[in-house]
């Protein structure tokens, strides 16, 4: 099947690039640093809790699970951010670059549909990114469990949502790659990614300040690119409710989770952009 051939080619190409070695080294370094940080965090928490317990006038100390949950949130946010960047870098020139170099000139005339080339590339990247996200989330969770003695809830659900964030960015980047040059696509997608992240921050500020206008700006950016809203939902599900209410609106998470409709919208968004890529690639001259 042609889609499987292209998916395998995409996966093999991604894995054979030298950059993959850099990603692996940096990812291992991140997990090691994270483990070290979690270790010191736990030590500090225990000593802080002991000092506070010795002072009757000290205020309430947040529970360990609430504090550890914030550490997990920080780790997952980093994973989400890194995979977002990685998704864009991996796919930014996947079509445009091959049109520019002429590599597709030998592929497209084969007995294969153009849509199959797009579908194959998408699946290849999706497999690679999903495995990477699963491994990185597992690294964070394992660190939390072994070093921090804390197990975050609903980790599978959260991982699926982080994968959805990556798929949203992948769909957008693939669409851009069928329309624009590699450079133009990179600039546009990074700008939109920035708009989504900033929109999410504005929405959190709006929630904290009780400003409907700011919240609506955030919702607007979520419609334009729902990656940040799906991250915030992921952050919501992997935290205990007590931690969410204790921490309140913050730059990394949310106290008001995006609805089921937002998830459906994100899935439809991915499919629509992917189909759009196929249609545009089918119609364009190479």
């Amino acid at each position, binding site marked *: 099947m*042609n889609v*499987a051939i292209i998916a395998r080619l995409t996966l093999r190409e991604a894995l054979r690039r030298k950059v993959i070695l850099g990603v692996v080294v940096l990812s291992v370094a991140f997990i090691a640093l994270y483990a070290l940080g979690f270790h010191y965090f736990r030590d500090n928490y225990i000593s802080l809790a002991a000092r506070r317990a010795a002072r009757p006038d000290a205020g309430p100390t947040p529970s360990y699970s609430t504090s550890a949950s914030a550490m997990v949130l920080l780790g997952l946010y980093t994973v989400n951010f890194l995979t977002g960047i990685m998704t864009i870098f991996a796919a930014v020139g996947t079509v445009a670059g091959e049109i520019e170099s002429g*590599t597709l*000139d*030998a592929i*497209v*005339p084969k*007995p294969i*549909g153009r849509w199959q080339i797009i579908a194959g590339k998408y699946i290849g990247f999706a497999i690679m990114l999903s495995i990477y996200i699963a491994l990185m989330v597992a690294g964070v969770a394992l660190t939390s469990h072994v070093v921090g003695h804390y197990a975050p809830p609903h980790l599978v659900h959260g991982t699926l949502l982080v994968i959805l964030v990556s798929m949203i960015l992948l769909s957008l980047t693939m669409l851009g790659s069928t329309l624009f040059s590699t450079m133009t696509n990179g600039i546009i997608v990074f700008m939109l990614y920035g708009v989504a992240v900033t929109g999410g921050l504005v929405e959190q500020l709006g929630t904290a300040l009780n400003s409907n206008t700011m919240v609506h700006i955030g919702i607007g950016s979520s419609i334009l690119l729902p990656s940040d809203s799906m991250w915030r939902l992921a952050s919501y599900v992997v935290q205990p409710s007590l931690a969410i209410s204790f921490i309140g609106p913050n730059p990394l998470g949310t106290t008001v989770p995006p609805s089921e409709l937002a998830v459906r919208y994100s899935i439809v968004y991915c499919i629509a952009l992917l189909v759009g890529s196929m249609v545009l690639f089918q119609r364009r001259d190479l």
Partner: protein
Amino acid sequence: MSETVLESPDFDVVDPLAEPAIELNSLRKVYGNKVVVDDLTLSVDFGEVFGFLGPNGAGKTTSIKMLMGLVYPTSGSARLLGRPLGDRAARRQIGFLPELFRFHEWLTGTEFLDLHGQLYGMSRAARAKRIPEVLALVDLSAEARKKIRTYSKGMQQRIGLAQSLLNSPRLVFLDEPTSALDPLGRRDVRAILSRLHSEGVTVFLNSHLLSEVEMSSDRVAIIDHGRVAAIGRIEDLLARDLTVEFRLGPVTPETIAELGTLLRIEQVVSGPHTLITARAPSEELVAQAVDLLSRRQVPVYGVMPERRSLEDVFVDVVSPEREPGR
């Protein structure tokens, strides 16, 4: 993954006598205001080696790209192997070497051919049999396990050629197949073309090397400004508009005038012999001219047709008012 075996064509073989292998009808491509290909009409029979010539910017590569499904025609139609453009069954039996070849350089030669074999729908067994054959054909067997990025430009063109022949095609499009090759490599490609010809494979050859096209092709089309400016068998094109020098005995002005009704007389030099230089649209008219001179009892000491090359024909055909730099 299910794999199909390629050995037999998966659609009814077009009767080679009933349909041409390639048929273009008023094919046209316009980018904005620029007409790149304008009303291109031609047909190529099964088993022909067809040379496709033209100056830079004449629309050759765009024409081939349209036939290969890389570029969509603005209007007009075309059929390959009796099927409309884009037909997947026909594509299974078509090979293509692009002009600006650039392949997945991180693959080895064997991996690259295996990938393209899979895309052709060849079974694992068919690939295992065919890949060593085409590698040997292009003299790359020893380099098969090396990554393409380590290949020289010429070797990359050879592996591209191997790719275009991998599926044992009935129709091959070769866009500048020798542009990166040295004289020995070019000779090898000519031998491959000759072999394909003897096997009945139709070859559509686009090359700037006119001498090669002249040696390899049965027929050629010269296109200019996106239209066919001349088309025909090589011998016919070379014989067309001949320059002939007549060395004659005494000849009257009336006979010269009569000769002028058959040929375009360019120069008459009187002396011990009368030397007449004339242009003849065909060899038949030269024969008629000799017959006329004989009837008028003019002694004919010599008739010397100038041997023309395809390059001469090309230069004559291509519009002299071409934009500089094209």
